[in-house]
């Protein structure tokens, strides 16, 4: 078994944490996005043959830290884009331009689209679809779509690509996207048939590993705040962590955090194999989200009044986890998908 981190992976985790510590990066800023790219973190999403240094586990390490430090920059869609591109053509020049931060590309999955709106039309010569609340698309030059029939690379500057951006519940910029009969050239179809299915599988695994890792980092941080608080906050002559009723609730939070980490590990490990069952990925996302949300709510409750204020990052954590639950492709989407699978 090889579930513990390798030496290289531990070094990556340390370096990411070092960068985050003390940095207030909870607001989206162009300069921070540049810095992240310059540090090479995006290379954690692809293997060496594609110019990176990573894989599922390395990406998860970065995403866990993103969550734990409430970094506002949305890396997940870029990791999904990289995963699709690597699967389609590991030598594509675009990959290295994305890793270096020259260009932003976001990956999209069919389950992120509004109901039944995503359609390949006219014998695969154009595509239409609507997406809501996408992260980081406002910065993107390219969209990479993994469909079961074809893998597509679109330019955001296409006249038939319509974007409307706004601030979201988690303070990050969100965008609604409309593809209105966007014409597909030969160059924009990266793969078809079984290769497209393989790219879609890879994209789903990456998406699941990224979301669960973010939940994991967030849940662990919110739990740690709470554990520290109950040891220091005194009421009725003792630290409130001395009260057994609170201890048992903290234990249930601790167990929930451990289980989020387990589900995140399962998803990250799935990124290393080809045949991860889709339903297991959906369960990992749904389970990680449910547990992390429980931790966030308990964190606020056990802090008492101060937990309701913006002086602590608890409310921000709750809002962020609510987004991961409700965003198309997130936990609610996965739960609906599980109701449609019959084995």
């Amino acid at each position, binding site marked *: 078994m090889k579930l513990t981190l390798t030496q290289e992976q531990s070094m990556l985790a340390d370096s990411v944490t070092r960068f985050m510590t003390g940095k207030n990066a909870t607001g989206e800023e162009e300069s921070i996005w540049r810095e992240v790219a310059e540090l090479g973190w995006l290379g954690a999403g692809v293997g060496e043959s594609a110019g990176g240094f990573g894989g599922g586990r390395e990406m998860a390490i970065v995403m866990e830290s993103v969550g734990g430090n409430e970094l506002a920059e949305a890396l997940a869609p870029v990791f999904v884009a990289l995963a699709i591109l690597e699967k389609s053509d590991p030598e594509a020049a675009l990959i290295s331009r994305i890793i270096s931060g020259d260009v932003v590309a976001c990956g999209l999955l069919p389950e992120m689209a509004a109901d039944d709106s995503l359609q390949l039309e006219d014998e695969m010569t154009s595509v239409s679809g609507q997406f809501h*609340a996408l992260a980081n698309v406002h910065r993107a030059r390219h969209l990479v779509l993994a469909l079961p029939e074809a893998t597509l690379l679109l330019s955001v500057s296409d006249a038939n690509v319509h974007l409307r951006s706004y601030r979201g519940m988690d303070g990050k910029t969100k965008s609604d996207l409309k593809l209105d009969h966007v014409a597909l050239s030969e160059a924009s179809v990266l793969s078809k048939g079984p290769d497209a299915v393989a790219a879609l599988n890879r994209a789903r695994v990456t998406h699941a590993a990224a979301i669960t890792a973010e939940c994991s980092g967030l849940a662990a941080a919110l739990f740690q705040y709470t554990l520290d608080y109950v040891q220091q906050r005194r009421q009725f002559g003792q630290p409130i962590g001395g009260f057994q009723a609170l201890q048992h609730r903290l234990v249930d939070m601790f167990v929930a955090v451990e289980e989020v980490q387990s589900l995140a590990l399962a998803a990250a490990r799935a990124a290393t194999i080809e045949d991860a069952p889709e339903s297991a990925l959906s369960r990992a996302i749904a389970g990680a989200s449910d547990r992390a949300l429980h931790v966030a709510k308990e964190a606020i*409750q056990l802090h008492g009044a101060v937990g*309701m204020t*913006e002086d602590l990052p608890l409310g921000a954590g709750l809002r962020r986890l609510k987004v991961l639950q409700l965003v198309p492709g997130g936990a609610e989407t996965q*739960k609906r998908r599980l109701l449609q699978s019959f084995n």
Partner: protein
Amino acid sequence: MDAGWSPEDRAFRKEVRDFTQEKLPAAIRDKVMSGRPLERQDYMRWQDILAQKGWIAGFWPKCHGGQDWTASQSYIFQEETTYAGAPWLLPFGVNYVGPVIYTYGTEEQKARHLPGIVSNEVFWCQGYSEPNAGSDLARLSTRAHRDGDSYIVTGSKIWTSMAHWADWIFALVRTDSDAKPQAGISFLLIDLNSPGITIQPIQSIEGAHHLNQVFFDNVRVPVDNRIGEENAGWTYAKFLLGHERVLSAEIGKAKRMLERLRSLAEERNLARDPRYLENLARLETDVLALEWTTLRMLDTVMGGTAPGVEASMLKLRGSTVVQEIAEYTVDVLGHEALAFDPLFLEETINDPSSELSRNMGVVSEFLFQRAPTIWGGSNEIQRNIISKHALGLG
């Protein structure tokens, strides 16, 4: 179902319903229904309407400006107005300090302070909690020492709802530091215009500013503004907490929120979605149980028995049920709930005409409703109270 209301109660319910329907301004109702935060003038406008009708302090004795309402009338008034979308009737004057004043105050204090509450002219706030005394009120450390006919008050109060809008604050202060924690506390009425007071806002996680920290730096308060005996403030404080909890089960609000939930779900074609229906059934069952528990308690009160731990039970369940409805309403909105940043709630947009933020109230309320399980004696404290007083456990 029928709770056996008397003909008088039925008639009163109709009167309240008709009055609210006629008099509640549509703009205020819309804000409340959608969950958007209210401004000072919204509260005051509705309370002025109630004051004119004599309904601000209906449960007070007539001699102090009330209507001698029975417990069932108070309940009906609260349920009907809340269900119809009226703002929360601010309790600081009417429910909290008012009864303390007419029960324990001097004739001068009654004459000076009660009319301003009944007429809605004076805005009160509550100075109980301190940074190091949350659930454990007896540990408070704001001090008052005598200087002639005055106390000099120094310290600070926190989580003071709406202090930035208020005229007066009632506060617990320590007048004897050598006494045991619960002794040595006095109950003062303090004019917020007194020199030495500063009010600092606290931003809440839903983006609103309703909480404050109030600092007292050698604030001079006339001894005449003390309620009852020096060092006996704990008695009045406990009396007040009893009043606070009776009112905490919010049946009207829960029903109003369920109705909004149903209509939002229908707009989104979820009316036959089995996941939605299962959640709705659960929440509706919770509200049914809460309502009949409240009615049973009301029946006991009407029978002459003072409510005991039942009030804690209603606080516990009421806050939890409303919290769950608020969260599930956001879940039903789905991605539409994401198009709004609560941290910009007050600064930018409080404007329902923006399409993207038309659900802002629902989001803001989801976050705000994390508070009721904390405030007014957290639900953990309520469990301790029930364990001790209803179950006879330690």
